[in-house]
């Protein structure tokens, strides 16, 4: 592992480390339960009297629902409830703000239970609750639905044509900047435009111009745990939801809005979560399970299988992207232009805005123009996936950059260092960067053993790619209760996907002067902690960590005041340093004073909240060596190194894990993963045998280089880590394939048939 660990470096050099807890690698607090199988995931939840739900899904990609006859299902012994969209409140045209983005409730409700049309194969049409899952499944199969079939539209460009069948009659094309909407229904939900400088002048100044078009396929987050929800709608009107989710408060709001009940009547209890990557923010099952519970009077659990997950939960969009870039004779970018269309799936909401803002984000672009479209197609409604929209964009831009480098006779490293975005760079969307570390990631790769080691074999090639993600702040709350023995229970609302419990506890421990092991972090339900936004946007270690830091400061203030009272001294003469409260003539460590204060007054409870907005954007640069089999087109990865600006790495092992995990998902996106649809819109590979995500047998160890450029907008310099590493891999792989066999890949995934096709085309 090629990790640059600043803490270790300072220790080895004899310097005093800046931090005592931050930068170390304690064992995660939830580790024992997870490695022994005792952790409770969604499907492990059992509630007394629980019955089981099954969903009837549409066999068609596009159809009008003429009628639904549930009589045979209701008559089956053991069936306790049958629900259709008529059992959900009519949401009207309300738009709900969900912290990270907004949603049209009518679309969200229709995605949970289709109202008048089905818009993708697998769309939920009806749901059954029964005494056991077998009865529920049989009953669902007895529901008779009459459809009027409509032609599906699966291609983003085809969907934009005036002759395309329109999915949603209520959708009009909205100009993002002005809010103006078109008169006629259309599949184009949104249009965006960004401009900077003089694009014509920029291209006129260019010595070389490269213009290319790219396609990327629909891909899924591929989390291992399927969606699960268990719901109890109690007789007193209180609703409890047990579910693995990236955001308990987001689920609470979505359920409350969709079922038209006050938020305070909904409690969401987080189960452990087997991956999310953006895909476990939107609700699919919870409102349906709650409705079945209301109708049956029993708690209801619904579990998706893998086919349900792939056919009916939000993937990340396929896209069509055109890029044109110009450079002068010295290699400086003079102009850059992008045209981007992203699939939204069944309802509006692709990450086109982020894609547009990321497409040239790694470069100093003096003259730029970016145009984007959010387009509905007959596929599941897209949802977030690590750095949503950025990977598609980076694949296109970085591929053109690689071609420009060849024309210029510059190495990709030289070109990037010459044109890299840095502090003060103004993106095409107009915003300037604060202190960022792209140059540092490039230099880290340049100094790596990997970069300095030449390739040896035939059909081997090397590629480089960079990527950017914004990261997010948003709201978090933490409560710290000091126990009678001086240990601390830390309550937080951020569900833990990547080890964040420990990363948050470490920041609290650092601030209060304890060890990570002194702190017991708990991820609690929505009734037990203050409002906390989703675990997404690479925000948890930054924002919830900051809330934990504030909780520690709150405790320090209380300890100082109480110690002064106990010692009968002026509070101004008491300080708290390095885990000790210090008076004019007394000193006590945290545990000692905590025990003493516990018997002499009210309990010590620290409160911390955060809603800071300086998350510090993050950059990564990846280097990959590949070998291409010229007979089959198969691409093998020989070596992979990823450097990333992580700000201050709180727990370096978790940071490495995020970098490696993101890189692996990006590699899968680049080489193998895609939704295969037939012309009727039926997904043909809705299982993990045919939808092939990479495994450890496909990959070498991913070397992670942690570059620490502390974020000035956080007490400990934290930047988000989780999303950036998925961005560069497809672009780096495309460059490596070209270096190996001389073919430019312009479509993802770069699977063996596609690579072979390009090789044969080149030969002929």
């Amino acid at each position, binding site marked *: 592992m090629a990790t640059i660990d600043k803490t270790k470096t300072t220790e080895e050099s004899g310097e005093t480390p800046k931090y005592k807890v931050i930068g170390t690698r304690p064992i995660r607090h939830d580790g024992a339960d997870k490695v022994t199988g005792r952790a409770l995931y969604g499907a492990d939840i059992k509630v007394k009297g629980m019955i089981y739900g099954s969903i009837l899904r549409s066999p068609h990609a596009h159809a009008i629902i003429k009628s639904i006859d549930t009589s045979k299902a209701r008559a089956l012994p053991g069936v306790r409830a049958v629900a259709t969209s008529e059992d959900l409140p009519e949401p009207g045209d309300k738009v709900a703000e969900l912290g990270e983005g907004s949603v049209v409730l009518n679309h969200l409700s229709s995605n949970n239970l289709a109202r008048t049309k089905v818009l993708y194969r697998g769309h939920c049409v009806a749901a059954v609750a029964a005494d056991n899952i077998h009865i529920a499944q049989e009953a669902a199969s007895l529901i008779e639905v009459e459809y009027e079939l409509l032609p599906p539209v699966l291609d983003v460009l085809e969907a934009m044509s005036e002759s395309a069948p329109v999915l949603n009659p209520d959708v009009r094309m909205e100009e993002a900047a*002005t809010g103006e909407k078109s008169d006629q229904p259309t599949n184009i939900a949104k249009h*965006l435009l960004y401009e900077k400088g003089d694009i014509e002048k920029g291209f006129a100044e260019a010595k070389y111009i490269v213009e290319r078009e790219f396609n990327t396929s629909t891909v899924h987050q591929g989390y291992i745990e399927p969606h699960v929800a268990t719901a109890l709608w109690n007789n007193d009107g209180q609703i409890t939801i047990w579910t693995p989710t990236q955001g308990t408060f987001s689920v609470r709001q979505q359920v409350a809005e969709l079922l038209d009940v006050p938020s305070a009547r909904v409690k969401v209890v987080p189960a452990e979560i087997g991956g999310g990557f953006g895909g476990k923010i939107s609700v699919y099952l919870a409102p349906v399970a709650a409705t079945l519970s209301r109708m049956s009077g029993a708690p209801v659990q619904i579990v998706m299988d893998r086919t349900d997950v792939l056919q009916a939960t939000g993937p990340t969009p396929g896209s069509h992207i055109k890029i044109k870039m110009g450079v002068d004779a010295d290699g400086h970018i003079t102009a850059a232009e992008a045209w981007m269309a992203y699939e939204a799936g069944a309802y509006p909401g692709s990450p086109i805005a*982020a894609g547009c803002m990321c497409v040239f984000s790694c470069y100093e672009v003096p003259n730029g123009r970016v145009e984007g479209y959010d387009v509905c197609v007959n596929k599941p409604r897209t949802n*977030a996936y*690590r750095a*949503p929209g950025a990977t598609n964009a980076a694949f296109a831009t970085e591929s053109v950059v690689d071609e420009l480098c060849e024309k210029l006779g510059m190495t990709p490293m030289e070109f990037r260092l010459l044109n890299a975005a840095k502090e003060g760079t103004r993106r095409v969307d107009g915003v300037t960067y604060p202190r960022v570390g792209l140059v540092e990631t490039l230099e880290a790769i340049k100094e790596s053993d990997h970069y300095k080691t030449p390739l040896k074999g035939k059909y081997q090639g090397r590629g480089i790619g960079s990527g950017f993600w*914004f990261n997010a702040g948003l709201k978090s709350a933490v409560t710290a209760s000091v126990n009678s023995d001086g240990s601390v229970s830390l309550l937080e609302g951020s569900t833990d996907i990547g080890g964040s419990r420990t990363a948050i506890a470490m920041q609290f421990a650092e601030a209060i002067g304890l060890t990570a092991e002194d702190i017991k972090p708990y991820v609690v339900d929505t009734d037990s902690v203050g409002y906390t936004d989703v675990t997404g946007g690479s925000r948890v270690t930054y924002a919830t960590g900051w809330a934990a830091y504030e909780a520690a400061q709150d405790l320090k203030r209380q300890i100082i005041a109480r110690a002064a009272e106990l010692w009968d001294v002026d509070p101004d003469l008491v300080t708290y340093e390095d885990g000790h409260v210090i008076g004019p003539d007394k000193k006590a460590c945290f545990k000692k004073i905590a025990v003493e204060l516990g018997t002499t007054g009210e309990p010590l409870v620290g409160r911390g909240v955060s809603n800071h907005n300086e998350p510090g954007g993050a950059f990564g640069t990846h280097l990959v060596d590949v070998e291409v089999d010229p007979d089959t087109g198969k691409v093998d990865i020989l070596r992979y190194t990823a450097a990333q600006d992580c700000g201050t790495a709180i727990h370096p092992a978790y940071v490495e894990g995020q970098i490696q995990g993101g890189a692996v998902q990006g590699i899968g996106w680049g080489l193998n993963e895609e939704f295969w649809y037939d012309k009727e819109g039926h997904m043909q590979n809705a299982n993990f045998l045919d939808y092939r995500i990479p495994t450890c047998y496909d990959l070498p160890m991913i070397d992670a280089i942690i570059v620490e450029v502390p974020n000035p907008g956080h007490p400990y310099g934290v930047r988000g880590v989780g*999303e950036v590493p998925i961005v560069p891999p497809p672009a780096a792989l495309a460059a490596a394939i070209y270096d190996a066999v001389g073919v430019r890949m312009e479509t993802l995934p770069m699977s063996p048939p596609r690579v072979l096709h390009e090789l044969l085309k080149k030969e002929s």
Partner: protein
Amino acid sequence: MPRLFIPPLLRPFCEGKDEVFVEGGTVLEAVHSLERQYPGVIDRLCPEGKLRAGMSVTVDQNVTPRALAQKVSPESEIHFLPAIGGG
């Protein structure tokens, strides 16, 4: 004075300018200042004095959680951009 950056599709309503100097101590006051210079623009940026759903305000490099209530300084840059979400 704060600089309010004008999105391309709004520039026809602002004599083609890509940025305008505005007065005010908050984003909302800055928008009202823009409205005084270019009547009608406020209905497109923030109808009824509220940020449109799906939009965000960036002040000095960062998306602000306080939206139109965000304080601005004379050196501030204000951008109206689509809201984005992470994974």
